[in-house]
């Protein structure tokens, strides 16, 4: 149903009533504001433009005058001289106006930048002659930092030395722009300015500022730099850093000890700069400190130290680097260690990664082996008997390149020819073995190493590389060889030899002797005794035998055969195991033990206890912290193994550093007698400082007094008030003041525990006070501060 329009009385939407008069007033207001704005912009812009225009005109006006002044010569004509005097009068009149003075100053400053030589000197003289520097002095008194800064810049540019005294007071100005401008001015204006600056500056010297200062010094004519080593003792670390850079730049190598000492500086930049200096000046004496610093240095410093060791080091430092190579886990550092090793001792470490195995190459190994076999025979034929006799004392041919340890045993025989045959057959065995083990070899080159291309002269047993040797039970081997029926071996093929050797001897590393003649000779001549002296020769015995050989030689006046030597007389200490540890760059380390005349071929593994201890230590190293110190001390005490003790001591040292022990905390030398809150407080903001003060109120003790006293000198009133409160509280709590009798309740208090913190030596491990989980209160606090420190240092 539709409702007629006349019945609708209440409109759904009612327009608000608005006074149109207000609207008009508002429109007018905004219009006026817009006009004022645009007029203002127009006026200011015009003013700037006209000012620039005036300045430009004035510059044009001044320019010829200045040119006249700059190029005035005494040899000028009379007319020119008159013109010069007129100009001088004219310009003096002009500069009575402030605007003109400013423009003239601006012109002179502009030209100063573009001119050099005599014109520049004349320009500076003109500036001073016209008294424009007095305006700059006025600027120094201004309260606006930008005006002061421009005043200093003007005086510096125009080399007004008289201003030096006025500018030095800005060296420690709180406004950094003024301060930096003043630093440059002071260094620029007088030669001794750099000394004053380094002596007095309290603020940070930014890197850019250091560059600018160095640039100023560099461009100073006839400049004699002072001994910058004097500032290496500055309390301002930035001064020390800058001094180091200056020392390096001016090659002042007379501060060797100071620079070496700075290696131990807490600031990494200083450490790095000191290392650079040491490298540049080739301070070899720093090597020891470099190694000392290395262990606790950051990654960057470690790399810098390694770089320095690479520059300065000798082969004596190789062992240090090899240890690092084993212990370092960081990829970059490890790579650097390897690089340094190879720098000191080129090609000490060969590439091992992504090297193709031997089967990658399609080389006819038979050809190679045949060639090498012939080569070996040729070499052997050339060897004189006395060399062989020397060599026979060991009777071992070493090939450290073989992955599986290999041994060559030469039969002790009278006949040289037989020896040669033995060698031949041994080499043949090696060839066959090489063929059979081809797949196991690392590469073709390693295989070639199997064949002795050259035989070195062996003077003593220590000269022999025995690294490849496993432990050999000589009795057993001799028995096995002797008992071997000849008939079974005689007609065998190469393959059969191989299988036979594997079955009978069950060690692949032995050369397979297959020649009939040799086997026969071995069965008849090789006895247990024959092996014994070979592996049991100590130096003294060896010398004795050498003398014996020589005496026989002289008596018979002929070459000596092996059997003429009385090997049975060789004596060696049964109790004293002779261990020869030979480390070859290309071979795995092998330990050979000679025990009770037996040569054991069994691998020389650690004892189970040692192994367990080492595993435990490695786990501690991975996961442990300072709480493991007690356990580590126990391990040191309980174990007799050097390896275990060394590793445990290493970890003790590591964890001791991570968490200074209580005795260290209170050691005067370590300067850790201060409050544990100190470091945190110094880095904290205002709020945190207040919180820390509250904490001190609760848990603080006398160690906080020093810190609190220093807080009393701060500017913040609230901090001072809080610190005063805490200080009073702590003083009132101190044992000296608190003479109240100890109640039963107090007796149980942790603060009444009567313990004394003692030096944390391994032998004194039981004295360390610890709670149930092995962590002391101080450990916790120290760990906290260490964590914070590490966090801050990234």
């Amino acid at each position, binding site marked *: 149903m539709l409702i007629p329009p006349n019945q609708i009385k209440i409109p759904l939407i009612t327009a608000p009533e608005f006074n149109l008069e207000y609207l008009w007033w508002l429109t007018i207001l905004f219009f006026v504001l817009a006009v004022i704005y645009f007029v203002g912009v127009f006026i200011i812009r015009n003013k700037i433009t006209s000012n620039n225009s005036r300045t430009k005109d004035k510059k044009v006006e001044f*320019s010829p005058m200045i040119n006249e002044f700059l*190029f005035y010569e005494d040899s000028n004509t009379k007319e020119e001289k008159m013109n010069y005097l007129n100009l001088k009068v004219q310009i003096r009149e002009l500069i009575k106006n402030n605007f003109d003075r400013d423009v003239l100053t601006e012109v002179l400053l*502009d030209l100063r930048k*573009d001119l050099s030589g005599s014109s520049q000197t004349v320009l500076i003289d003109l500036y001073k002659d016209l008294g424009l520097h007095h305006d700059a002095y006025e600027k120094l008194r201004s309260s606006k930092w930008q005006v002061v800064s421009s005043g200093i810049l003007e005086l510096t540019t125009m080399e007004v030395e008289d201003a030096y005294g006025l500018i030095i007071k800005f060296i420690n100005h709180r406004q950094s722009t003024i301060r930096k401008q003043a630093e440059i001015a002071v260094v620029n204006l007088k030669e001794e300015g750099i000394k004053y600056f380094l002596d007095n500056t309290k603020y940070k010297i930014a890197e850019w500022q250091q560059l600018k200062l160095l640039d100023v010094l560099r461009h100073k004519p006839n400049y004699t730099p002072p001994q910058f080593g004097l500032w290496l003792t500055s309390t301002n670390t930035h001064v020390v850093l800058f001094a180091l850079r200056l020392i390096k730049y001016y090659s002042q190598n007379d501060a060797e000890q100071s620079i070496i000492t700075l290696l131990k500086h807490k600031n990494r930049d200083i450490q790095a700069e000191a290392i650079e200096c040491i490298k540049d000046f080739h301070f070899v004496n720093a090597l020891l400190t470099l190694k000392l610093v290395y262990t606790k240095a950051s990654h960057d410093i470690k790399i810098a130290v390694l770089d320095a060791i690479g520059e300065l080091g000798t082969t004596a430092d190789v062992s240090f680097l090899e240890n690092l190579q084993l212990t370092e886990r960081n990829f970059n550092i490890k790579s650097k260690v390897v690089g340094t090793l190879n720098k000191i001792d080129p090609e000490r470490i060969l590439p091992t990664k992504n090297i193709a195995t031997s089967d990658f190459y399609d080389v006819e190994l038979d050809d190679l082996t045949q060639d090498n076999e012939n080569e070996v025979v040729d070499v052997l034929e050339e060897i004189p008997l006395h060399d062989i006799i020397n060599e026979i004392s060991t009777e071992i041919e070493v090939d450290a390149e073989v992955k599986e340890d290999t041994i060559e045993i030469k039969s002790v025989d009278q006949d040289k020819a037989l020896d040669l045959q033995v060698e031949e057959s041994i080499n043949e065995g090696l060839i066959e073995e090489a063929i059979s083990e081809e797949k196991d070899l690392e590469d073709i080159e390693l295989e070639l190493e199997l064949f002795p291309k050259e035989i070195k002269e062996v003077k003593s047993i220590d000269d022999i590389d025995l690294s490849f040797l496993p432990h050999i039970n000589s009795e057993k081997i001799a028995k096995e060889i002797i008992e071997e029926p000849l008939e079974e071996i005689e007609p065998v093929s190469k393959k059969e030899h191989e299988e036979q050797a594997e079955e009978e001897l069950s060690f692949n590393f032995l050369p397979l002797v297959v020649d009939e003649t040799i086997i026969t000779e071995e069965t008849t001549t090789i006895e247990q005794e024959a092996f014994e002296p070979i592996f049991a020769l100590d130096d003294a015995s060896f010398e004795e035998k050498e003398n014996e050989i020589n005496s026989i030689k002289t008596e018979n006046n002929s070459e000596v055969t092996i059997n003429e030597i009385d090997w049975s007389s060789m004596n060696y200490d049964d109790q004293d195991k002779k261990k020869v540890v030979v480390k070859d760059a290309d071979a795995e380390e092998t330990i050979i033990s000679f025990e009770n005349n037996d040569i054991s071929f069994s691998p020389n593994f650690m004892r189970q206890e040692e192994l367990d201890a080492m595993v435990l230590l490695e786990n501690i190293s991975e996961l442990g912290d300072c709480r493991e110190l007690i356990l580590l001390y126990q391990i040191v005490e309980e174990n007799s193994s050097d390896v275990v003790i060394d590793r445990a001591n290493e970890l003790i040292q590591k964890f001791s550093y991570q968490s200074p022990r209580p005795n260290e905390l209170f050691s005067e030398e370590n300067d850790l007698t201060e409050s544990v809150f100190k470091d945190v407080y110094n880095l904290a903001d205002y709020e945190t400082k207040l919180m820390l003060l509250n904490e001190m109120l609760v848990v603080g003790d006398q160690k906080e007094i020093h810190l609190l006293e220093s807080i009393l000198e701060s500017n913040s009133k609230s901090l001072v008030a809080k610190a005063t409160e805490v200080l009073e509280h702590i003083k009132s709590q101190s044992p000296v003041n608190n003479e109240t009798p100890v109640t039963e309740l107090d007796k149980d208090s942790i603060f009444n525990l009567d313990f004394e913190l003692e030096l944390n030596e391994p032998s004194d491990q039981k004295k360390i006070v610890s709670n149930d989980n092995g962590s002391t209160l101080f450990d916790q606090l120290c760990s906290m501060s260490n964590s914070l420190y590490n966090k801050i240092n990234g």
Partner: protein
Amino acid sequence: MGKRVLLADDDQLLASLLNFRLKKGGYSVHHSPNGKEVKEYLKNEMPDIIVSDIMMPYCSGIELIDYVRNDLKSNTPIIIISSAGNEQNVLTAFELGANDFITKPVSPTELLVRIAREINK
């Protein structure tokens, strides 16, 4: 009438000063504050030597050398004024055929000597 020198530099103060010194040294100097004017001038007249700043509006000193050597096929000696640390530009200038260069801050006397040497070659 001395030798004609074209001085191309947008820095009015320095140009005025060099102009003054060169005139005093007996040269006839024409100053152009930008590359466009220089090119216009060179179309009509070839000076005995050109002294040009590297950094100029409209046409840089490098372009000016290229214009003189390749477009105008002129062997007029060109001395380049460059700021210190602008060695790459100087090398380019030499490759394009500049005869000499002088770095700012300039010694007017030195410039005079170099101009004399280039003109007398």
